[in-house]
């Protein structure tokens, strides 16, 4: 059965559809794998075995009765614990939501169900998606399957690790400043942040509303594109949802044709602070693209240098407001409600006990940045920087079709290594922040191992609603490297 856990989503869907294997067998194989390895990886916060098998049975029933199936029917998936699923515990990695079972499905979950995707359970994450290592989870860190001493990236570290550890062929993450792309890079898999507004945020527990975007993880670019096409599309329940049709990401991923494409290398996303091994793999990937007929152009985006500062004002500002609702009144944790304390004091005690240090740090940062008298200097200024970054992108689109960079400046660091140095931790997102602030699509695809024999990713960024372009380029890189390696990068990982 072990080939079931190593199969791609495309292969599994085909085997389920032609009855070579049942969806229940596929789900069970993955539940067994989770039971076998997750004690060491800690990718899952909640495994919904009964729910998964029930969904799988429904798919098998549909297969038996000859119903038309979606391209991912019966394929198992790991869901980041920041999306609501009716009746299934949803914590967002925080103590403050411990025990909360949402009464409603996120739109993403609804679409997954409609497509017959089997949800195995909820994955670990940095608390409220704030972090780059999954060490900020209230439920312990997730371990990188490549090296259990290393971080799996974050905040969607649980989802990335689950896919990397063959616990699921597909996963959903969310990306606010790099929380899909950076974990994908450091766990050697593919992860995409769709155009902001392409995937509904309804049911996504908000960190930073103007940046949050759910997206797909998989081990191949085509699988990632298939999942993208299932979850994307207009949702009237999300006012920021885009009405235009979803670009043909699957077609682009299958074509992998980059001949005559103009690909820009971002000058500002290289140099000091970039590990030599990361830079070397990146330079090799550039040559691979050139060899396939792409035109490579160096592009300067001077405002990208300020992305980190702008991001750490905008995201905390929005989070300080978004997280105000965790007040012990209607759901989640309630502390010291002993009949003596006032409602305000119970709120205070609950928030003090329920939020972790990084969340508190960002609430305080954001509260300060929005304060009267400081608003213009901080939040207002950050929004101006955001506009400048957007202009850099728009200027680039005059001469190139996509921009590329390393996904992260370094290979994954050791668990515990940066916990006491928030700024060093924040720098893990240096390359991914600009397109988050801009709102365009971006993907990370594996391009080899770095100095420490750990995965390195290539980031591809494209104009708003040109999601197909990032898949096209990622797929071209994946194909070229597969020829060199005789398979996926992940095949080089030591078995767990």
């Amino acid at each position, binding site marked *: 059965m072990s080939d079931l856990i190593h199969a791609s989503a495309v292969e599994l869907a085909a085997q389920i559809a032609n009855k070579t294997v049942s969806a229940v067998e596929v789900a069970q194989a993955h539940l067994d794998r989770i039971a076998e390895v997750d004690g060491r990886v800690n990718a899952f916060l909640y495994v919904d075995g009964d729910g998964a098998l029930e969904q799988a049975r429904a798919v098998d029933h549909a297969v038996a009765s000859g119903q038309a199936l979606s391209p991912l029917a019966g394929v198992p998936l790991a869901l980041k614990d920041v999306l609501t699923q009716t009746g299934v515990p949803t914590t967002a990695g925080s103590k403050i939501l411990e025990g909360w079972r949402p009464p409603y499905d996120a739109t993403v979950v609804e679409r997954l169900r409609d497509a017959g995707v089997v949800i195995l359970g909820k994955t670990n994450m940095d608390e409220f998606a704030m972090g780059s290592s999954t060490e900020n989870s209230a439920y312990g860190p997730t371990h990188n399957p490549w090296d259990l001493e290393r971080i799996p990236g974050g905040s969607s570290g649980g989802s990335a690790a689950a896919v990397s550890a063959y616990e699921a062929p597909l996963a959903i993450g969310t990306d606010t400043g790099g929380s899909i792309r950076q974990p994908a890079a450091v766990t050697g898999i593919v992860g995409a942040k769709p155009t902001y507004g392409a995937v509904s945020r309804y049911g996504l527990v*908000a960190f930073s509303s103007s940046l949050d975007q759910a997206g797909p993880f998989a081990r191949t670019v085509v699988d990632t594109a298939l999942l993208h096409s299932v979850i994307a599309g207009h949702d009237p329940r999300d006012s920021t949802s885009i009405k235009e049709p979803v670009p043909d990401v699957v077609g682009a991923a299958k074509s992998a044709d980059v001949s005559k494409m103009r690909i820009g290398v971002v000058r500002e996303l290289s140099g000091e602070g970039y590990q030599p091994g990361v830079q070397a793999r990146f330079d090799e990937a550039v040559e691979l693209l050139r060899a396939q007929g792409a035109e490579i152009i160096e592009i300067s985006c001077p405002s990208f240098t300020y992305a980190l500062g702008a991001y750490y004002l905008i995201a905390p500002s929005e989070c300080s*407001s978004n997280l105000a609702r965790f007040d012990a009144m209607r759901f989640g944790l309630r502390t010291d409600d002993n009949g003596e304390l006032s409602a305000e004091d119970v709120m205070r005690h609950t928030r003090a006990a329920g939020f972790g240090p990084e969340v508190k740090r960002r609430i305080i940062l954001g509260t300060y940045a929005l304060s009267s008298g400081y608003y213009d200097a901080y939040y207002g200024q950050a929004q101006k920087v955001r506009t400048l970054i957007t202009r850099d992108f728009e200027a680039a689109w005059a001469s190139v079709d996509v921009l590329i960079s390393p996904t992260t400046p370094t290979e994954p660091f050791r668990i515990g290594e940066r916990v006491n140095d928030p700024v060093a931790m924040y720098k893990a997102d240096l390359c991914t922040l600009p397109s988050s602030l801009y709102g365009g699509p971006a993907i990370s695809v594996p391009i080899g191992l770095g100095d420490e024999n750990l995965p390195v990713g290539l980031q591809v960024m494209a104009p708003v609603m040109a999601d197909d372009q990032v898949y096209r380029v990622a797929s071209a890189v994946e194909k070229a490297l597969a020829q060199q390696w005789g398979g996926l990068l992940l095949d080089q990982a030591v078995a767990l």
Partner: protein
Amino acid sequence: MSAPLIDFDEVIANFDPVLGLEVHVELGTASKMFCGCATEFGAEPNTQVCPTCLGLPGSLPVVNGTAVESAIRIGLALNCSIASWCRFARKNYFYPDMPKNFQTSQYDEPICFEGYLDVDVETDEGTRTFRVEIERAHMEEDTGKSLHVGGSTGRIHGADFSLVDYNRAGIPLIEIVTKPLEGAGKYAPEVAKAYVGALRDLLRGLGVSDVKMEQGSLRCDVNLSLRTSPDAPLGTRTETKNVNSLRSVERAIRYEMQRQAALLADGTAIIQETRHWHEDTGVTTSGRVKSDAEDYRYFPEPDLVPVAPSAEWIEQLRSQLPEPPAERSKRLRQEWGISEKEMQSVINAGALDLVLATIAEGADPAASRKWWLGELARRANDEGVELESLAITAKQVADLEALVQSGRLNDKLARQVIDGVLAGEGEPAAVADSRGLQIVSDDSALLAAINEAIAADPDAAQKIRDGKVAAAGALVGAVMKATQGQADAGRVRELVLQELGQ
């Protein structure tokens, strides 16, 4: 508990009041501002809620298009400019009845701005028009409703526990804010009352809200400060809340003027604070101290896209506005053939819509005005409620008038029927039946009473026989008394004269 006050005339002699009014209007949309929940008043607590209006994690708002349309129509009716592009903003503060601990409102980009409403007030020099300038009208959502149980004040401090009903959370509100209203002098309380009354009529005419002050669908906060002269800088203001009737608007302002003047005359500084109006005792009491430093950390709502009404849509809405109340009252005054002062008394009594509704039910204009401004106004005043809150409908008043016109009731009996209707005894005809109220029209029954009266007052009878017809009044009165008012006085008079050979 009540503060020292000084005489109103003395206030006016020494101080100049500056008013500011913030009116919150609950829109009568079928669904809430940002979700599809129903908005029915008085439903079982927490039955009209969903993830969005409960602020559950992951939920998102979607703007109610009808609410935007209502906001624009209100703005147009108030002569406001309409923003071609504006955003919602988050107003951040913690309170248990606010699900998200921020209110989705508008801050520096209101949808309507810079308008006015003219109101007429009776002054010593005749009717004078005051222009109340509108600074802005913006959209926002209502909070939930807290019920504080235990404790003496009904407020959160001292309560044993509190219950929160989130049915109201997310109901669309329009907040209409005036510019500081200066120069009203001693008429400030009347101007404020006339403004709120005119605003209420305007909103009702637009059909955007049921504008029931006692149910909270129209709420008024009154800002007031005093200064020593119109040239002096503005004084420290207080904001009085819980002003839930037109009468209260006037009374609360009058009270605050007298209270503040007493403090200022005594050399005591006014504290900038929120105060609560108490309808029963007629005083305001101190609430929360509100400093300018209160920081709501407003920022543009990232979960919503900007509202950008097209010029075509705005013009279409403008062209469909109903007749403005001022023009309507002018037209009606001409139709009814009454003076401006008479019309003003109808408007000030809050009776215009009721009178119109009564006319629509078949009564004639004069009779409709007579009932609402006379007997019914007196009842409302006795009960201390708004005219429209009386337990009698326009239809019932019209029916009552029809009974009078048919000769079945006279005015005295009609008043008894009103007693019955207000007491919930049913429709006017049914009340008249069950109470046995009917003009005695049987001449033989009347003649018996007339002959008794003649026998009891032979002097009067003789005078009439001698041609002094005026003396009939005493005998008619006696008959009316004997028949407990159920006779038609005109018929009694005819019969008396006939019996005595006149």
